């Protein structure tokens, strides 16, 4: 216990100060979402994560966005264990045929109002797996998608900046 306390004090506060840098691509989408969240979600966003067949890099970066350095939770964004608790569905991967049913079922079990965020190049159009016999490609053709976070993988900063856009006034 003493060791934990000593390390805690020695390390101090690690969280980075993050300014949302708005890029042209995501701004229009973000503004639309921002008003939606403020109206319906009282500025606290609960996200259910779903991997539709990604390589694992996006997943790793989403976990990193929750580490003490980026600490996404301090902005009111938390990842929840059940779709029934979620406002948003965060999807990575090019949607393997095997995941199609699970993806739809997960979305269906979320309460209204809900929206979908896609993360990583695969989720946008299949990315490096475009043209494969076993992917459904673009999540937006399956579910109504509100926001896309580009990158392969997007860094934690990219993810936070994209999400922050609709949480900040």
């Amino acid at each position: 216990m003493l060791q934990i306390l000593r390390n805690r004090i020695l390390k101090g506060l690690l969280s980075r100060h993050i300014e949302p840098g708005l890029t042209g691509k995501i701004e229009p989408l973000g503004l639309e979402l921002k008003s939606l969240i403020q109206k319906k979600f009282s500025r606290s966003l609960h996200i259910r994560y779903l991997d539709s067949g990604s390589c694992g890099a996006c997943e790793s970066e989403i976990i990193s966005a929750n580490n003490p350095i980026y600490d996404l939770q301090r902005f009111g964004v938390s990842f929840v264990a059940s779709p029934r608790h979620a406002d948003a569905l965060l999807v990575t991967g090019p949607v393997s045929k095997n995941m199609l049913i699970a993806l739809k079922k997960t979305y269906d079990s979320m309460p209204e109002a809900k929206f979908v965020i896609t993360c990583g190049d695969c989720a946008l159009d299949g990315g490096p797996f475009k043209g494969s016999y076993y992917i459904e490609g673009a999540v937006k053709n399956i579910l109504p998608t509100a926001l896309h976070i580009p990158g392969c993988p997007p860094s934690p900063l990219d993810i936070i900046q994209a999400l922050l856009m609709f949480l900040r006034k």
Partner: protein
Amino acid sequence: MVCPEVVAGIKNIFPAFEALSVALPYPDEIRVKVARQFFKDTCLALHKGLSSPVAVLFASDERKDTAKFVVNCAFVNLKKSQWVIVSMDVSEDALYFDSLAKNIHSASLFEREIWEMFGIEPKGSPDLRRLRLHDEVYPKGNYPLRKDFRQIQAGNLSDYKFNKVEGTGVFEVPVGPVHAGIIGPGHFRFSVAGEPIINLETRLGFAHRGVEKLFEGRNCFEALRLAECVSGDASFAHSLAFAQAVEKISGVLIPKQAVYLRAIFLELERMYNHVNDIGAMALDVGFSFPSAYASVIKEAILQLNDKLAASRYLKQVNTVGGVVKDLDEPKKKMLLDSFKGIKHDFNELVNILYSSVSFMDRVDTTGALRRKTAEGLGVVGLIARSSGVPADLREYFPAFSAVYKEAKFKIATEESGDVLARLKVRIAEFKESSRLVEEFTGKLAEGRQINIHPELKGGSALGYVEGWRGPVLYWLATDAAGLIRRCKIVDPSFLNWQGLSYAVLGNIIPDFPLCNKSFGLSYSGGDL
């Protein structure tokens, strides 16, 4: 006669052995071509003689040239640093071969793969259920890795049959493919009697993206980028194994500086993943401080990667013929400086974990995989080393790893095979990796060549590297124009998932996440 000792070794166990040809295309690769009736016994003889599991068993469609399919089976001879690849032709009018699965368990998954992807039947196999092409969504009779496969034809769909465990008080707990955490997709079906798990069936394939097919027809430079996306947390190991296969085919000898740089990046990848898994193990027993602490160390290494190679996951660092990112003096200094902090933090992390009695109690004896089981299943890499199997390609294959020998690389093994053993191996490997990185960094000199432009040739070869999970294998066949004809990938996760099913037996379901994290397997790497 090439390699008389290998032939003698096979004949010793299988006296009727006759080879159509024996070749030694590369010093580390022996190819034995046999007739179909000898295939099974030759494989069994090699399996016994070399005490090697099936490293990879795969088919390729050569109907365009020879009107035949070819089935290859590779074994590893660690002592001689050689791969022995047995192959046979399978003609289109008799699409079958004798199954090895009843004699060599590690062949079972590969045979199921050949059956679903090519429609070549392993006769006598105890299990022919499809692995990745799920029966519920993918019609029967479509074999995607055949060359004449264009698009999916309509056919019958069916349900997957899980192994049933029956008895009074036995009930099933299905979990997945969507899990509670931020984790990949997989389905686990537990059969429990009271608290303890008496059977776990893992159904994977949810992350199947048809990667092997995507490789076909691409040129090697394009394909290298795809190799980086096979398993995102092992992107450097995958791209390295792929690049090595191409370099072997083309006879390219990469500059020494590039060898050191590749070794540095490979070890950096190992380090961030090991510390990540150590943190995840702590998190799964509800010990959140060390978990947060580990994620800070992981972030430090990822940021270091970003500064050194402009990519947190070391993508676009490898190229065919070397690397594209060099470390100059300021970068070397930065690397060594950050390592001081990383090493200090890591030692603190280990102290915190080891001084927590309740943590040690949770990991000790949990999820034990005995050596005999591990060897029987053909489990590889870190998991095998934790169960006392001293196999590490860095130790035994000095072709790429001459630098490892030079740096006096020490292999880490543990005997007990439980979660604690896997934790200890990770800790030992992290420390060894950080020592190696510092040593290799000292050997770098400025202004040296870091890559050469390769003259691509046609041919086939096996590329291999000991990634952080274990050996990553790339069998590659290219045509004269340098385009890929066949690429067979084996990520260690593919074989190690079955190890998990055995390790959890007798443990309770709440310990499953802990066991799972201690294995640290990739869904995408196994599912391809």
